């Protein structure tokens, strides 16, 4: 968390050292995964080359990668927004689920509306659902200092079960037995940018939000307040910033973006809500935010990386016998290495208290 917040400041120059530090978690994770691959009898370099080819070799593959990275940009962004204010929100996953279901619900219920109305309405519903989902942990954190890690983590499981119940019962598609809502109408679907690829207008929304996030972090009063509150809450309070209110705002914003991630996935790619809708977009978002060190460009790159892994992982199974799970191994180890500190190994002694 502090890694995200502290590197979020505007540094005048980025040196090689910063770049090395930024890619170190990825490199270490690649080494670990290479060992796993080698033990399993694969040539790691060949596998990595294959992954690279399958994710960026050609326009179609790139489109697939970008499409897969769309929800990750948003969940990474949602996580980063909360982290930056010093709040450890690990509940974006739940927001994705409730947001996805809300968008799908609007998309198959208000079938009479025109696209210009229905699409914003459905996306708005997704963002609203995500916002409301974060309301309880936000208020508990800001007013009663209840540990947000636990509450948001618990809410993820509640979201899984709650949405599963809804799509198995009240919202189950008629005549369907497979825990899914009806398909959303055409008017509620996000336009595809490069058919037949699933790449859709959701990516543009994600990029736009990323741009706003960049501007917000650099140039707005709220962005400044958030950063200061995340870096040193006592200082922020002493400077007259209303930190509890800020925490509520940022958690709700984080929820809204998380909900939107689900909504865009529902309206752009899946076209409905099904059980198992999210393969852990919210958790991958944490890895994205950490690896991207909370910066807009970092989040984009990290999301593309994980998007690439997801798409290429799915296809390399077809061309080789390397299991797709190598992607999960990479993702988990990136997360671990992104928060580990190696600096003290080099320093023999720390000065001061």
């Amino acid at each position: 968390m502090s890694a995200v917040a502290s590197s979020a400041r505007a540094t005048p120059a980025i040196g090689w050292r910063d770049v090395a530090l930024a890619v170190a978690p990825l490199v270490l994770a690649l080494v670990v995964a290479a060992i796993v691959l080698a033990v399993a009898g694969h040539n790691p370099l060949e596998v990595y080359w294959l992954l690279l080819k399958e994710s960026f070799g050609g326009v179609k593959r790139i489109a697939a990668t970008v499409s897969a990275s769309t929800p990750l940009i948003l969940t990474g962004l949602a996580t980063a927004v909360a982290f930056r204010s010093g709040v450890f929100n690990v509940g974006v996953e739940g927001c994705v689920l409730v947001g996805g279901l809300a968008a799908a619900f609007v998309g198959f219920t208000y079938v009479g509306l025109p696209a210009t109305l229905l699409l914003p309405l459905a996306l708005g519903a997704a963002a609203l659902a995500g916002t409301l989902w974060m309301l309880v942990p936000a208020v508990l954190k800001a007013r009663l200092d209840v540990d947000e890690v636990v509450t948001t983590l618990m809410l993820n499981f509640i979201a899984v079960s709650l949405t599963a119940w809804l799509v198995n019962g009240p919202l189950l598609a008629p005549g369907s037995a497979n825990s899914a809502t009806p398909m959303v109408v055409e008017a509620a679907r996000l336009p595809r940018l490069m058919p037949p690829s699933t790449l859709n207008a959701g990516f543009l929304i994600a990029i736009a939000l990323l741009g706003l996030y960049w501007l917000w972090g650099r140039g707005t009063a709220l962005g400044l307040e958030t950063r200061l509150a995340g870096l040193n809450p006592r200082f922020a309070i002493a400077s007259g910033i209303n930190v509890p209110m800020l925490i509520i705002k940022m958690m709700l914003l984080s929820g809204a973006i998380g909900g939107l991630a689900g909504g865009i996935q529902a309206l752009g790619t899946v076209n409905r809500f099904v059980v198992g809708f999210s393969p852990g977009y919210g958790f991958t978002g944490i890895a994205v935010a950490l690896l991207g060190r909370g910066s807009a460009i970092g989040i984009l790159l990290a999301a593309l990386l994980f998007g690439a892994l997801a798409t290429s992982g799915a296809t390399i199974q077809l061309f080789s016998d390397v299991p797709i799970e190598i992607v999960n191994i990479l993702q988990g180890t990136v997360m671990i290495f992104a928060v580990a500190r190696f600096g003290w190994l080099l320093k023999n002694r720390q000065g001061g208290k």
Partner: protein
Amino acid sequence: MSMAEFTPDTTIRLGAHSVTRRFGALVANDGITFRARRGTIHAIVGGNGAGKSTLMRILQGMDRPDEGVVLVNGMPSVFFGPADAFKQGIGMVHQEFMLVPGLTLLENLVLAQEPLDGLRRIDRRKALEAARKLEREAGVTLDWDMPVDDAPVHVRQIVEILRLLYRGADVLILDEPTAVLAPAQVQELIVLLRKLRSEGRTILFISHKLDEVMALADEITVIRSGKVIGGMATANTTKAALAEMMIGEILSRPNARPSTVGRTVLEIRGLAATDARRVLRLKELDLDVRAGEIVGIAGVAGNGQDELIAAVTGLGRVERGAVRLDGQDVTKLSLRARRELGLSYLSPDRAAEGLCLSAPISENLIAGRHRSPALCKGGVLQKGAIKRHVETLLDRFSVKRASAALPISSLSGGNQQRVAMARELDGSPKLLLACQPTRGVDIRGIAFIHQCLLDYREAGGAVLVISEELDELIALSDRIVVLYDGRVTGEVPRGSAKVEELGRMMLGETRQEIAA
């Protein structure tokens, strides 16, 4: 330095030889040498930031000197951790007590050296026996099954001392042991320490309270700015002489021109306030600060200053009484609201509260003022205006910097404080609450900050200065108000304040009593 310089000498129980410890540019300990003799009480005396705590940490193995050695029984010793010091019989009672919450007093007593029975269980009976024996030795009685969290402060302190004895320490290092105690409890502590001395133990205690030092210590070492200023037997010195050594010459004599005193800006009536542990620290306080004057608050740490700061800023709880800012009752308002009404607050803790060390200089300079119309339009920060504003302020306060975009931690302590000062004086506040305004600031920085405060006063500003530096208060204040035990013991106008007299008032005597 060769070992030949040292000879084993069991009468020198603990000491330091040319100990130097640096933190970056700051030299906390600069060639400190002293020797504490076995069976005596040795006081290390010095003002805030003199380097006492660093020295204690080194003596106890929590830190290591860059140069020089710790002496045990006259011979150099190297401690790689507190455990090494313990092995030599050296233990420390910390200012912030090192007891483990959630454990009982008995558990704390035996922790890390638990008596075991045959089944490797903790033998409660043996532990309690040991506790009772220590009780008798110390002449106290305690409820050993009480959780630490419920124990009052002086009980915790006694447990810490007994724990050291339990673990076989015969050198006790006490860091400001009376800072947290009420006067009656101080007496108890003094009795206890004398008893321990009579049993042949060596006690090293750090303090800046001269009365206690005079009453308790056999020998005294005075340090200032990391250097030893003098060492002597208590019998051969006086409180006044110690005070002079501690404070040194008053370095900064800013030019305080007369100024016109205007309306009352801060008005405090019948104020009572508690600390975080809900102990009543501020009992009854009336205080006025008017436009065009500097009022200084003097007092030994822990006599209500922190609670006064909390009450003026709104960061703490007020039990009774009222705080009015420029005629308006702000007792229940947040700091944010008070800032809007014209309060400025220079925090005593620059690193933790006064600045955001990892944020750029520019952001530290505008934080809190970043929403003012000149700097921010419709929630969007005006980059150009901010840059101009920042550069102007930094130039006006002569802050040496490579770039305002660098983290403020890249500045020296003095320059950091200039930034904090610049921010708090920006936007013409009505009242400036300046707490420890020159703590950890170099001499030139001190002079500059003092001049800033005086200029602001001349321009009609009201300043409340809370400082542990008496010379600073004397130099700055139009009136010095002395706090003792949560009450005002007296008020001294500019020109008539003497260190010795203030020192006695800080220990609870009124001006009339001193005059008598």
